[in-house]
């Protein structure tokens, strides 16, 4: 899918040199889509996109921040918010243990990180979800950090960019999880009132409560190629209708065709395209 976007002076994709050095030579990446094997460093320099088939690998906040913030420099917001356990939820594992295990595994505090910084010299606040943390599920921490990130954008009078990647609600926070949809949407209503831009970027996958709240509320709803985006997951839809789903159902391309996205953006052009869009609004 080509997007009708061009700019006469295109800047290259800036991959910070520090990031480059982190990856030792001799590591290999196999594209899950076309099975092509390339060097990890090549894959990384290509914004984690397969040079062969364009498959956009799932990456997290660390990668998006380094792709979008100038010189990978940003001020992280509310970095130390972690989850409570108001319901004392216990299935096989008590919820706090589940959270701690995920924190240990991922090095993250929860499923979203937020930061303020410059993107091609445009001041922005970006919040980005991490799917590796309990499936990018939305509990109180996710809702609160996004709410505070929107508040930060309002206080700084800068645009807000939300990068969604989520399996949906954090079941272990039940009612609290549900109300995060309300909280984040309320803050976006305030952002509207102040005339500040909101770009919602949906990445693979964006489903459930996230789709039914902030992900679909952008002034600009955009997505990466091939991203799965839906309210109900494909398995649930299939069970509901008792039929196989048409090919490409709930893909970014499908949503674009049905009028729910403004455009699809190649990750390698994302930074320039987003900053150009924001420049046009100034």
């Amino acid at each position, binding site marked *: 899918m080509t997007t009708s976007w061009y700019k006469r002076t295109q800047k290259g994709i800036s991959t910070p040199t520090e990031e480059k050095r982190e990856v030792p030579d001799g590591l290999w990446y196999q594209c899950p889509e076309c099975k092509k094997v390339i060097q990890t460093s090549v894959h990384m320099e290509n914004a984690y996109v397969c040079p062969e088939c364009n498959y956009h690998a799932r990456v997290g906040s660390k990668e998006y921040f380094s792709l979008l913030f100038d010189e*990978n*420099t*940003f*001020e*992280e*917001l*509310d*970095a*130390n*918010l*972690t*989850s*409570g*356990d*108001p*319901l004392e*939820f216990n299935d*096989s594992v008590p919820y706090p243990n589940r959270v701690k295990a995920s924190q240990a595994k991922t090095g993250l505090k929860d499923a979203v990180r937020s930061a303020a910084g410059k993107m091609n010299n445009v001041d922005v606040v970006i919040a980005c979800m991490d799917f590796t943390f309990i499936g990018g599920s939305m509990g*109180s*921490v996710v*809702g*609160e950090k996004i709410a505070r990130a929107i508040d930060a954008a309002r206080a700084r009078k800068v645009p807000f960019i939300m990068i969604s990647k989520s399996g949906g*609600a954090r*079941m272990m*926070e*039940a*009612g*609290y*999880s*549900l*109300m995060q*949809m*309300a*909280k984040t*949407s*309320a*803050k976006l*209503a*305030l952002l*509207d009132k102040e005339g500040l831009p909101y770009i919602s970027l949906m990445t693979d996958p964006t489903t*459930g409560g996230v*789709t*039914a*709240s902030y*992900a*679909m*509320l952008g002034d600009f709803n955009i997505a990466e190629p091939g991203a799965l*985006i839906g*309210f*109900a997951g494909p398995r*649930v*839809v299939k069970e*509901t*209708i008792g*039929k196989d*789903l048409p090919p490409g159902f*709930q893909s970014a391309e499908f949503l674009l065709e*049905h*009028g*729910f996205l403004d455009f699809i953006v190649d990750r390698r052009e994302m930074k320039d395209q987003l900053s150009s869009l924001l420049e046009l609004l100034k």
Partner: protein
Amino acid sequence: MYLDFEKPIQDLEGKLAEMKQIADDSDVDVSQEVKSLEEKIKTLKKDIYSNLTRWQKVQLSRHPDRPYTLDYIENICDQFIELHGDRVVKDDKAIVGGFAEIDGNSFMIIGHQKGKNTKMRQVRNFGMANPDGYRKALRLMRVAEKFNKPIITFIDTPGAYCGLEAEERGQGEAIARNIKEMFMLKVPVICIIIGEGASGGALGIAIGDKVLMLENTWYSVISPESCSSILWRTWEHKERAAEALKLTAEDMLKFKLIDGIVKEPLGGAHADRESMYKKLKKVILDTTAALQKVDPEQRISDRIDKFSAMGVVEDLAPAAEITE
């Protein structure tokens, strides 16, 4: 219809009916026995209904005899003019809405609607709305705002519909938009969970100045059955899931995720419909009157503040860090 935990009541009520039959058919005076049995039933009911488990409350919330949105409308309002359609695709029959009159006051009333028999359950899609239903609801809220009429919503849904067309027409977008727009409505908004409040499908019409739950209802991010199937790969552990989710009116009020509970008659809303209607009518009128005393801008900012405060987080070290 009796639920499984109502079996002891059913047995005694069966016995009572039998006894009365015998009295009718013969000259034996059983009035003493009848009286004592009636007392026994009363005590038993009190005992059962004041010690309901969370799952039993879920069962009551789904009781087929329970009043639905249109029952409340018909029995509370002096007049109701239903308004149809989202002006884009169709008229979704899982959500109804229209202007109503209660004691000389006009309201916009919107609610999920379940069907009462097999045919109507299909027509109403079991109270599971498509995007068209949420868009109709928002359209009607806008009309209410234009004419400065308070909005009452009745929530009673097992969830937003998960069909193919729902996805094609943007179920997520429709719910998201409603949630955001409802925050900015200049008129009072009162939301009442009258049965099931399942997830985004409920929340899509449940952003209000006052969110109330009837005593025997549930409101959560997922149904106990779905929760059970995710956690234990089977629907069988729904009781345990209901306990874990803490989804009752009492739980939700304790968590400050709702504003109040409306008591139901002993045995549930269907056990004494008239008193339920009377009580809810009074709640609606009193709550609206109180909200109308507040300035619209203040109401909006209170509404936003209330939902913004929902959540439990711990801040390990409040200072922000500079990361490179």
